[in-house]
């Protein structure tokens, strides 16, 4: 007991510098924490029915979140049909969970993904099985954010593998086209690409083709992420020894099959940390679509704050949404670290 105390006190007060640091941090915490806790918990109002009652309590007004959660989570989707976006979110989360948990074989996972995509489309659009038709312009909130992220990844991934391979191609034209595309996408901000897609994609299409705002934004996000993803995968490709491809070729595999079956899988494994970083960035970046008017989680929150009666509770609303974004991002980074450890252990055993 004494020894534990001694160790503890040595870590906190072992030297003059450490003691000063400890005291400074304690003073800072003492200065910041009590008022924050009083605001966020003790004086906060969780159940007030009116903004006035909320303001009287003097603390945070979490009742705002309770009042507006439908608008924040589902945007302008028709109120009576709110179960449909909820079900779509559950389907997407279930799919991601079963992919991460790895209790399905690869082929049944692919089947589940296709079925899940169809289910989400049916749930969100409707128009069949007696479900009322809902236009994609009135989708919003969490389902929109998830659909943008997942579809963005699904489009970007094969494109990125192609770009990464193309950047290492023997053919000069292929190589330079890939380099120009990747470097151009990485050099400009996503906002400018979103504006470009929003203003200029209609100009690029034949006059009679109309494209909604949702696919426009999706194109911008997918192309942008593909460039970053391609760079992450290229790093992985560089880590695969050339002997791997030579061995595959000497076993009689053609160049295409040697690349896709032998080199790319190993490259993807090496590139996992970089790939997950891009995925996290993509998930966070979907919040920018609000700038071109798509009702994602963040813009729906701003919309909820537009109600004049509840206007002054934006801190509460933003903290709530911040927690919604934090969860998946934090999970992704931890999951990638665990995966990396596991794969490293596996590679060591071979």
């Amino acid at each position, binding site marked *: 007991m004494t020894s534990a105390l001694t160790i503890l006190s040595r870590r906190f007060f072992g030297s003059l510098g450490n003691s000063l640091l400890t005291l400074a941090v304690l003073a800072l915490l003492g200065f910041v924490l009590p008022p924050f806790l009083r605001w966020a918990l003790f004086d906060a109002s969780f159940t007030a029915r009116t903004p006035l009652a909320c303001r009287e309590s003097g603390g945070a007004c979490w009742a705002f979140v309770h009042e507006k959660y439908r608008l924040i989570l589902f945007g302008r989707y028709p109120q009576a049909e709110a179960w449909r976006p909820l079900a779509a979110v559950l389907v997407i989360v279930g799919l991601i969970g079963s992919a991460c948990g790895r209790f399905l074989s690869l082929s049944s996972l692919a089947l589940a993904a296709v079925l899940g995509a169809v289910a989400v489309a049916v749930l969100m659009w409707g128009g069949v099985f007696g479900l009322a038709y809902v236009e994609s312009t009135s989708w919003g909130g969490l389902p929109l954010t998830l659909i943008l992220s997942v579809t963005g990844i699904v489009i970007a991934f094969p494109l990125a593998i192609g770009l990464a391979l193309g950047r290492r191609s023997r053919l000069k034209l292929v190589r330079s086209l890939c380099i120009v595309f990747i470097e151009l996408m990485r050099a400009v901000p996503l906002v400018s690409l979103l*504006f470009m897609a929003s203003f200029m994609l209609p100009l690029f299409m034949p006059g009679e083709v109309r494209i909604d705002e949702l696919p426009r934004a999706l194109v911008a996000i997918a192309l942008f992420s593909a460039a970053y993803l391609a760079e992450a995968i290229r790093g992985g490709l560089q880590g695969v020894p050339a002997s791997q491809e030579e061995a595959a070729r000497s076993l009689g595999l053609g160049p295409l099959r040697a690349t896709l079956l032998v080199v790319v899988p190993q490259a993807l494994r090496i590139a996992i940390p970089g790939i997950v970083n891009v995925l996290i960035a993509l998930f966070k970046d979907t919040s920018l679509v609000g700038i071109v008017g798509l009702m994602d989680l963040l813009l729906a929150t701003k919309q909820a704050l537009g109600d004049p009666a509840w206007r002054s509770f934006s801190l509460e609303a933003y903290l709530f949404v911040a927690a919604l974004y934090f969860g998946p991002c934090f999970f992704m980074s931890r999951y990638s670290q665990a995966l990396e450890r596991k794969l490293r252990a596996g590679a060591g055993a071979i």
Partner: protein
Amino acid sequence: MRDFLLQALLFGIVLALAGFLVFNVAGNLGARSIHTGFAFLHSEAGFDIGESFLPYDGRSSYGRALLVGLLNTLAVSSAGIVLSTLIGVFVGLGRLSGHPLVGPLASGYVEALRNVPLLLQLYLWYAILNEVLAPDGSAPAFLPGFYLAKSGLHFPVLERAPLAPLFALCAGFAAAAAWTRFAEFRQAQTGSRSASWPAWSLALLPAALLLARMLATDPFGWPQQRRFGFAGGGTLSPELTALLLGLSFYNGAFVAEILRGAIRSVAPGQSDAAAALGLRFKHRLRLIVLPQALRVAVPPLASQYLNLAKNSSLAVAIGYPDLMSVGNTIVNQTGQALEVIGMVMAAYLTLSLSIAAFMNWYNARVRLEGPT
């Protein structure tokens, strides 16, 4: 021969695609009777810009408006790079310190800031400025002369000879660099090491003397708190303050992780060996650990700074007139989307390429010579 045919085929496809797009654009522009060209740059903009480094009013041209936006983007990016580096150094060292309070606190900071979208953080900062802070009349000064109020950050400015201390500082650093050169030369000749205090005093003395002289007569323009608003002093608008705080704290978390990773990548044996040779802590850090760590840190730092510059375009969401938001306003007014968005993207491209070029040059300087 096969390679050549493949490339020719690809070239044909690319050409056809480009032709298809150009044909569509021409048709669409004709149908909407939009005239392409850059003539609109000379016509009157007719909208106001709140913050500008150049003389600008509603009668100025669109071209000038874009220039004002570009300068604002450059200013915000450079200030953000400096601030995020400072934050990153402190937080990164905090995570490395192994102190039982500071370490977890720094980790919590990094995790919380990295995993929440920057745009949301900008809105949060803006909301804090707007809702939590006191109105101008009753905002307390958090340092003498510094006020953080609803109308932004107010601070004292040097009114007479504002650049003189900066020049003095530069002169001081030049003298210090010369002294260090001389000391190194002497060490190489005689083997005896000179003390380092003359360098530090040379660096800071001129500026300190000048400041002391100036302070004797109070050269500052102090912000004066009135009932509604402030008069005098310098002001950062709430939009700019929120943008700067958001960019710096968000990117600071990434910089902290880069620096921590770089310092940990230096094998501990390096520091141990230096200690065994009798080098003191500060010399171990300066001569052994930091040069090796910087080599690792520079490439990811460069791309982080690039990200910061590009992320400054989120200003459009909170209404700070940077290049992107000025461009957006112009597109909405004139409909010249092709030209304006093209110019804005070209400007970001140039900015990115110049930062990349500078960092490549620096990287080449700190890189290991020869094969490792």
